[in-house]
């Protein structure tokens, strides 16, 4: 009752809970246009350009998955290369049995999601930093086990079969479209997941884990779901990697370098926003293309920038944009908004999520 009297000053009808301070329909239209234009690229640009873009798709997919893990579920994994490698090997194994590598790609993603379950059972026993190294050990173990099977190339790997008779130009175009499809599915999937119930649970966990637990949020289940989705996503990226390189080699596909890339890209772009990995991937591709002839330098610079961003601009590049311009392309949080006709007072309360 006392609550009712207190709120009479600000009647409930004056509040609206919205996803964003602006209408975001244009974002959807814009994204659709971008995707359509990108889909036309194989007809209008050189195959060298599409090859670079395939690389960007792989990095963006991996980074978005890492962002889901670390930015939304608080799970810092440095062993995501386990899924990149497994995805590549699933494609290789299916291709050796006569499946088209493109048809094998979704199967590889699902396979990685399934493989994530027993891995989660093991690593979820440890928290934060020790969780991170445990995932790393798991990735190393997965690679060592795969290397034991000489039928799939053992320690040296083997070329990916299944493309005999396919025109190289067509192969490049197909690979590009597969990459675009994987990225779009990954981003839309993450967006919908975070807008749904899971997003709410994750926000509650991030704000106060004990409180979330005691109000009935199934914390373990939510984190497991995120780990499985991220496993499937990184698996799809790994499958794409195998298809784009036409070669699967254990040391290359299980390299911790992938986790370094996905983590640094996310941190630089902005952790905990869907836009962050997109911005980060752009920065990464520019660095990588300009420093391509300097071997390890782009990773060194990327690492240093990630350290500086972590220490001095923890919301990343997109965080700077968001702070100054108040823009969210993919709103997954909520705003409590006062109606426009209200004469004075704050127009919007601080957002949560």
């Amino acid at each position: 009752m006392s609550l009712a009297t207190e709120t009479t000053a600000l009647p409930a009808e004056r509040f609206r809970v919205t996803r964003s301070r602006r209408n975001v329909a244009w974002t959807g239209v814009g994204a659709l246009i971008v995707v359509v234009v990108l889909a036309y690229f194989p007809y209008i640009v050189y195959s060298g350009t599409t090859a670079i873009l395939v690389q960007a798709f792989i990095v963006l997919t991996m980074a978005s998955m890492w962002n889901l893990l670390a930015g939304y579920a608080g799970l810092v994994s440095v062993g995501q290369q386990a899924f990149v490698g497994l995805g590549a090997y699933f494609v290789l194994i299916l291709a050796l049995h006569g499946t088209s590598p493109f048809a094998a790609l979704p199967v590889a993603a699902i396979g990685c999601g399934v493989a994530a379950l027993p891995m989660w059972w093991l690593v979820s026993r440890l928290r934060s930093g020790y969780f991170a190294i445990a995932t790393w050990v798991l990735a190393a173990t997965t690679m060592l086990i795969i290397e034991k099977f000489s039928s799939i190339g053992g320690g040296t790997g083997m070329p990916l079969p299944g493309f005999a008779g396919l025109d190289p130009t067509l192969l490049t175009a197909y690979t590009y479209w597969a990459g675009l499809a994987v990225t779009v599915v990954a981003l839309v999937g993450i967006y919908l997941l975070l807008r749904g119930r899971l997003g709410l649970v994750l926000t509650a966990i991030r704000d106060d884990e004990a409180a979330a637990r005691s109000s009935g949020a199934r914390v373990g289940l939510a984190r497991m779901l995120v780990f499985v989705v991220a496993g499937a996503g990184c698996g799809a990226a790994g499958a794409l990697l195998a298809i784009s390189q036409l070669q699967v080699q254990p040391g290359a596909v299980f390299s911790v370098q992938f986790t370094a890339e996905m983590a640094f890209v996310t941190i630089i772009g902005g952790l905990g926003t869907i836009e962050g990995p997109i911005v980060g991937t752009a920065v990464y591709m520019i660095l990588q293309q300009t420093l391509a002839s300097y071997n390890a330098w782009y990773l060194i610079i990327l690492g240093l920038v990630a350290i500086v961003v972590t220490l001095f601009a923890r919301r990343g590049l997109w965080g700077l944009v968001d702070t100054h311009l108040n823009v969210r392309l993919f709103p997954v949080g909520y705003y409590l908004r006062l109606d426009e006709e209200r004469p004075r007072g704050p127009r919007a309360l601080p957002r949560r999520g």
Partner: protein
Amino acid sequence: MAWVNAIIQGVLVGGLYALFACGLSLMFGVMKVVNLAHGDLAVVAGYLAIGVITVTHIPVLWSFLVVVPLMAVLGYVLQRTILQGALDRSVLATLMVTFGLSVVIENGLLQFFTANSRAIGTGLALVSGSFSIGSQIQIGYLLVVVFAVAVIVLLGLQYFLSATKYGRLIRAVADDREAAQLAGADYRHVFGIAAAIAFGTVALGGIAYGMYSQLQPTTGTDTILLFAFAAVVIGGLGSLWGTLLGGVVLGVAQQIGAQISISDETLAGFIVFLAVLALRPQGLISRGAQS
């Protein structure tokens, strides 16, 4: 007899792993920092030792006296600057900063010193010498010395933490930072000292590893960090002597794996680690302290 030999070798190598693991465990125990650059710092220490020996021509063992204090100072400085900066932000920040350091160090070494592997003091009698028991068992002097050093380091750490002024400060800050601060402890300085000790032990381990085996830029992560971590988890999180037990179990598992097939050495160690994680996640020496 080959099996007995494998077990003896494994126990002795376990001392080396314990040297790596105790620094990792100390930093986590005191400031809740999991240093993902731990192994790469060991490699840096090894490369420093090689550099010092080549430039000054001092006897190999003297390089310890130069490199270990140098790494300890580096530890203090790193802790007081960027690690403390990350700690003030979040756990995730400490992980990202140490992971960034790891990648930067590893690729920096790769860039400047190539991927070639290097060893320390190969001509030394201590490194190449060994003694035999019976006809099958041959034990290298180096591993015995390293094991003894590991035990001495752990004893020293135990004494330091339980009986000295700074040790008590470290434990006080680790237990309850705010309360220790109220009592006048400067926790940043205490963190710096803990980091200095951890970096000192990792330097010892790094140089010893360079004598026992060979160092490459990637040794830091794919061998040292992962083995040190496996030793910590097998032994039990937060237990100092657990790291020795964990190191020994890991070493024995690896040597037995190597007996089955030489390529299974690392895998056998990791499988034992995963088995402990699955069946006894609190580690063999349980302190009931889940991190």
